[in-house]
């Protein structure tokens, strides 16, 4: 039972830093409170800005009474559409795929509840907060449209960033006719809000037509020209600093209205301005995960192999923009099937516009697919793991391409063994614990694509033996400060502790987007290449220098390690970097790098990270309160640069799966469109007591094709698979499948009553 592909992988030599479970480079700063997040900046002469949000979801502001706000002690100005200058670029223009239509007091229209309608500037935060409360708006309001039954249906042109909304392959109708049985599941998923612990914030200070912006951002290289466009200045006049993000999860990749208002206010007031969103303001202008209404159907032959896979998703977006979660694309590359038909439809809600949220599309779609798989396994009378192995995809069923690497069988085995899956009874409601709680076991498959972005990096080696590596990359908690540093040091052939390292601001080479689980591969690949470029130049100098022991050695036969260049075939022959540069009288060597993915590989192979998650739940037999008591996952994602941090990413993703399955739901009032639960008392995310036992096992996988270094991502993988595993465990405990996420007590009660009747 060999995993695909059966290719003798070539092994790119990395170095002694990569693969080590180093603790976080930013650890001391983060545990001592010295790590500086955007809102921690406090330039002299600062004004505090707080925005007032619309209390309707659709219509127009007919008047704004700002007298009381202006009269409040400490308030110095109130920005409204009447006194706010036009931006240099219409904020409804989308110049790049990573741009959203934003609301920046350019007109009196209201498109969602909580949209900024005025910005209050004051000498103290308290005065600004009170000023926002004192702004009185009157509206001409239209009925809000919330939910799939009330929203406006439309046919989307694309889902995600630019994926077609429909796809089919194989003889779908013909295969359906051949099928002997089918399994289908209909489920809804709610609006979910990212809610990074750090709310969106900006501190902006202008000096003439140059602006310095402290703002958490996942894509500095895109944000810099984006800000420049809005304010009509050249990109080089924007300095963006984002050394630490207090979480992002996709919500800090594009530019948002409130933050642009902070920058605009600073220009208007000719003083530095700090604008920090309140928690309740995170449920409108700064994206969320689309709600979905999905149907998944698998048709099988008499041997329980899939003949046809159908997935449809009705997906929410806003009334004024077009980002839709690509839920129905989640299963395209998941299980073997000769025919596929997937399609998306859209529904416009009067909410803010959704965006990418941890594992966009895949989390949402696989949450339903994995339930359908278990329903199919039940119909087949098979164990869910055996059934998945029977329908294991050796090639990507959507295009017939082999996987660049796929150690999923190893993941199934490692996680199932650790979990103790083999003892699972086939039928539901068979297990009780010592306290009489219904106990259930379920599983799901994890998958996430492995994209690659064109990141750049620079490395410098100096005559005194010191070195520096840098890229604009972003650490939002995934560990970029550490993992990229390890890769940069390996590129330079030095110990990580011996190099200077910098990320997180716009003066550095564009490290591309920290998103799509691509940052380690993309920015890390660039840093490694930049270091290699230094070594290449150094080797050229040494091998042409008659006084060097390396004189005459070909470049390809020379390696760098621990600050020493030596012959690969005879490591005793070599000398230190310093000796080479000093003798040559060269002050420093600068290397430039880009990560590389072979173009032919992209066309030849399907590239994904994989995993398997097993869940145990316990359910009160009378109250139907659900607790996840154990989660065991095993994951294969190519070369793991830092196992300690990778495991944290994976368990973090699994915890997001717990939130998706059992807790998270953004509820908007159907009459007003206003969010009803826009705080942490109402919008529940998992707490420590919700996750008593977590395991994330790393399964070895060499991926020779995905990029030069064989690195794939782990940030989004853990949530996929986990959601369905929990739902399947709840079914196994109770015999009930609910028709929506999160799984609620009332739905389980109704289902249990229906079972009895």
């Amino acid at each position, binding site marked *: 039972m060999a995993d695909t592909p059966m290719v003798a992988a070539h092994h790119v030599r990395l170095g002694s830093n990569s693969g080590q479970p180093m*603790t*976080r480079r930013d*650890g*001391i*700063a*983060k*545990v*001592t*409170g*010295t*790590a*500086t*997040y955007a*809102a921690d900046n*406090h330039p002299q002469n600062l004004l505090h800005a707080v925005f007032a949000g619309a209390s309707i979801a659709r219509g127009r502001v007919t008047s704004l009474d700002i007298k009381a706000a202006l009269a409040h*002690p*400490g308030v110095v100005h109130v920005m409204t559409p009447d006194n706010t200058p036009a931006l240099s670029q219409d904020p409804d223009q989308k110049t790049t795929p990573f741009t959203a239509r934003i609301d920046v007091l350019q007109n009196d229209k209201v498109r969602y509840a909580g949209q900024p309608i005025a910005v209050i500037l004051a000498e*103290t*935060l*308290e005065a600004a907060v*009170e000023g926002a409360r004192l702004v009185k708006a009157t509206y001409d309001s239209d009925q809000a449209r919330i939910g799939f039954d009330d929203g406006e249906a439309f046919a989307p042109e694309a889902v995600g960033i630019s994926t077609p909304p429909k796809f089919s392959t194989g003889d779908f109708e013909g295969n359906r006719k051949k099928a002997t049985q089918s399994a289908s599941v209909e489920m809804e998923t709610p609006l979910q809000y990212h*809610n*990074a*612990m*750090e*709310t969106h914030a900006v501190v902006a200070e202008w000096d003439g037509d140059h602006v310095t912006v402290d703002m958490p951002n996942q894509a500095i290289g895109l944000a810099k020209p984006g800000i420049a466009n809005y304010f009509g200045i050249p990109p080089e006049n924007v300095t963006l600093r984002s050394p*630490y*993000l*207090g*979480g*992002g*999860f996709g919500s800090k990749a594009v530019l948002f209205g409130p933050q642009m208002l902070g920058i605009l206010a600073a220009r208007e007031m000719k003083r530095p301005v700090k604008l*920090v969103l*309140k*928690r309740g303001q995170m449920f409108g202008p700064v994206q969320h995960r689309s709600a979905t209404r999905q149907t998944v159907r698998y048709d099988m032959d008499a041997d329980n192999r899939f003949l046809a896979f159908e997935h449809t998703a009705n997906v929410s977006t806003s009334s004024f923009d077009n980002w839709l979660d690509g839920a129905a694309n989640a299963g395209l590359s998941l299980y073997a099937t000769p025919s596929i038909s997937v399609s998306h439809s859209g529904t416009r809600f009067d909410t803010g516009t959704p965006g990418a949220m941890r594992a966009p599309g895949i989390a949402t779609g696989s949450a339903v697919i994995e339930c359908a798989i278990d329903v199919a396994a039940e119909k087949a009378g098979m164990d869910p793991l055996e059934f998945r192995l029977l329908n294991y995809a050796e090639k990507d069923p959507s295009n017939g391409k082999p996987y660049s690497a796929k150690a999923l069988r190893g993941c199934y085995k490692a996680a199932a063994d650790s979990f103790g899956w083999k003892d699972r009874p086939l039928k539901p409601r068979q297990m009780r614990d010592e306290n009489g709680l219904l106990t259930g076991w379920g599983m799901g498959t994890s998958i996430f694509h492995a994209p690659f972005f064109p990141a750049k990096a620079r490395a410098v080696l100096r005559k005194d033996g010191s070195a520096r590596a840098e890229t604009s990359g972003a*650490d*939002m*908690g*995934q*560990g970029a400060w550490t993992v990229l540093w390890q890769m940069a040091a390996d590129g330079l052939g030095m110990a990580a502790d011996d190099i200077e390292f910098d990320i997180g601001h716009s003066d550095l080479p564009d490290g591309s987007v920290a998103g799509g689980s691509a940052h380690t591969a993309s920015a890390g690949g660039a840093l490694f290449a930049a270091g290699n470029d230094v070594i290449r130049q150094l080797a050229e100098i040494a091998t042409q220098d008659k006084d060097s022991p390396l004189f005459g050695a070909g470049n390809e036969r020379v390696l760098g390690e621990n600050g020493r260049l030596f012959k690969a075939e005879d490591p005793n022959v070599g000398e230190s970097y310093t000796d080479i540069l000093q003798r040559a009288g060269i002050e420093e060597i600068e290397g430039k790098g880009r990560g590389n993915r072979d173009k032919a590989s992209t066309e030849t192979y399907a590239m994904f990270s994989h995993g398997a998650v097993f869940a145990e739940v316990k359910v009160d037999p009378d109250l139907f309160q659900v607790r996840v008591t154990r989660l065991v996952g095993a994951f294969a994602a190519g070369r793991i640069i830092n196992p300690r*941090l990778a*495991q*944290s*990413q994976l*368990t*973090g*993703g*699994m*915890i997001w799966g717990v939130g998706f399955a059992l807790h998270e739901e953004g509820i908007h009032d159907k009459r007003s469109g206003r969010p009803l639960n826009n*705080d*942490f008392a109402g919008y529940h*995310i*998992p*707490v*420590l*007591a*919700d*996750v*008593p036992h*977590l395991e994330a096992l790393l399964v070895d996988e060499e991926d020779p094709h995905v990029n030069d270094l064989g690195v794939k991502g782990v940030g989004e993988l853990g949530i996929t698979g986990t959601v369905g595993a929990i739902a399947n465990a709840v079914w196994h405990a109770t015999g009930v499948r609910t028709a929506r996420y999160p799984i609620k007590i009332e739905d389980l009660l109704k289902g249990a009553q229906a079972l009895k009747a």
Partner: protein
Amino acid sequence: MAFQISLKINGNGHDVELEDARPTLLDVLRERIGLTGTKKGCDRGQCGACTVLIDGRRVNSCLSLAVSLDGAEVTTVEGLSDGDTLHPVQAAFIENDGFQCGYCTPGQIMSAVGFLGETGGDASAEAVREGMSGNLCRCGAYAGIQDAVLDAQARMSKGGKT
């Protein structure tokens, strides 16, 4: 109505002028004294990011009006280490990877210090999970947080500094 209060923060005296009664301890620390280690996550006592010790007890500083704290002793994350020597809880958070983005971390650490003081050194894993559940972590670093608190407890019971 203006107020004048004195706070002892991390051992240092601070006289603070308040133009009225509104400023919370959290905003006074962050915006007036410049101690920005303490973080604002929700401003209404629901997330724990702003946890500090007031007279040794863990408190959400966003729910504490500074004016009510005249004479109080406040410990923030900046006051925990002994020079370059980390507090055992800080060291355990690094070694057990008890954080990712780091934004909730000052609150988690102060809450853990308070919690370990409450339990007297024999807290079970279950007690840690319950006792630390007022501190939200959106990255989902909970596995490391639990391990870090238990590890810190073990270090502290041995009397070690780190």
